[in-house]
């Protein structure tokens, strides 16, 4: 069978995800996907199309022994990882943790932003403890990403805001207790960087970032005056210690 015809490839990807591709063809397809990024994308597209159907399946509680078995199997491999790979710096161990850490975000309603967050985290085997937040609107639409880098914050625009002739966007760090602290005005349309002298101290007890709409030049009072357009909890990603 030829696998170069795009329609055929798409049909096979759909059939694989639906489950009607079976037997030897299924196994062969799995091997093909492993080495064919374009085909893998097609599979992912169909997964995104069809898998949400499963959301209406009535839940059934599994017995407790399933979790005990999972824990036992994980503990076993984890001990092997510790014993054999103490000096390994591949980062795969920590990378996988990004998912659990971000699960907290998903559970608090930021799931749509999760994939962006992990995509941001993954390429940086950061030397220092990294901070990242995906800022979403009250409707849960991710709009901006804030990442901590050495000595500065990168503010990335996921989706540009409409031009605001009368206003500026101002970034705030919201500490666990107390009032938001200004991090300055950021661009509504393109990525920007925030640099300030006492940045680390300003961020030290930060729990979330938020963007508010302010008059040109930023809030005159030092506290947010306009509406909060988007906000997001800060996820701290562990540094890699070798």
């Amino acid at each position, binding site marked *: 069978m030829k696998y170069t015809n795009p329609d055929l490839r798409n*049909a096979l990807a*759909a*059939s694989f*995800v*639906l*489950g*009607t591709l*079976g*037997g030897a063809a*299924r196994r062969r397809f799995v091997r093909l996907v492993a080495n064919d990024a374009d085909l893998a994308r097609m599979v*992912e597209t169909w*997964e*995104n*199309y*069809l*898998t*949400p*159907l*499963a*959301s*209406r*399946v*009535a*839940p*059934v*509680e*599994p*017995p407790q*022994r*399933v*979790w005990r*078995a*999972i824990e036992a*199997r*994980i503990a076993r*491999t984890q001990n092997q990882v510790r014993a054999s790979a103490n000096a390994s710096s591949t980062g*795969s161990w920590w*990378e*996988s*943790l*990004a*998912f*659990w*850490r971000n*699960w*907290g975000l*998903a*559970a*608090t*309603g930021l*799931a*749509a932003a*999760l*994939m962006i967050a*992990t*995509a941001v*985290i*993954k390429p940086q085997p950061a030397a220092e403890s990294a901070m990242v937040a995906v800022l979403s609107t009250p409707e849960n639409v991710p709009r901006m990403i804030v990442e901590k880098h050495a000595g500065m914050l990168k503010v990335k625009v996921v989706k540009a805001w409409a031009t605001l002739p009368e206003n500026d966007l101002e970034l705030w760090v919201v500490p666990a207790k107390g009032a938001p602290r200004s991090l300055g005005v950021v661009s509504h349309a393109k990525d920007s960087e925030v640099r300030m002298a006492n940045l680390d101290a300003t961020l030290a007890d930060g729990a979330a970032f938020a963007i508010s709409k302010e008059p040109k030049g930023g809030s005159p009072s030092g506290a947010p005056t306009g509406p909060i357009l988007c906000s997001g909890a800060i996820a701290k990603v562990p540094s890699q210690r070798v």
Partner: protein
Amino acid sequence: MADRQAFAELYAATRAKLFAVSLRIVRERHLAEEVLQDSFVNIWHHAGNYASTRSAPMTWMTAIVRNRSLDILRRTGWEVQDEDEVMTNMLEDPAPLPDAALGTNRDAHDVHRCLDELDAEQRQSIALAFFHGLSHSELASHMKKPLGTVKTHIRRGLLRLKDCLGQA
């Protein structure tokens, strides 16, 4: 350890849904338990791969569970069950709630709406394949239709779903 705690919470939040998805496909509880176990060990080890996907977390995990279920189903050579049982299993969850927190809700509305727009036979064959893991030949014998007809229903149904979802 914090990550184990997060993993335990993830399991607690998703186990019943994912177990149900698998149970419909593999049909037997002990097989669905095996699927759930394998899938979560897999999720633990390969969560790093999640970063390169464009999927909501629940979609990513459900796909892992469905793939494992289909592997095991094909391994065991399961036979078609009777119609009543299939239809009973197709009853919908009246309260598909937790997914609001898992980022699949909007997509779920779209795909259900698009599925509703298909012809009855297209819809039925796609639903039977998706939820119950029926192969083409099992679909043909279940729906009492020639194999070629069933394949056409599925192919056309999938294309229409794609068109519908592509616009969503």
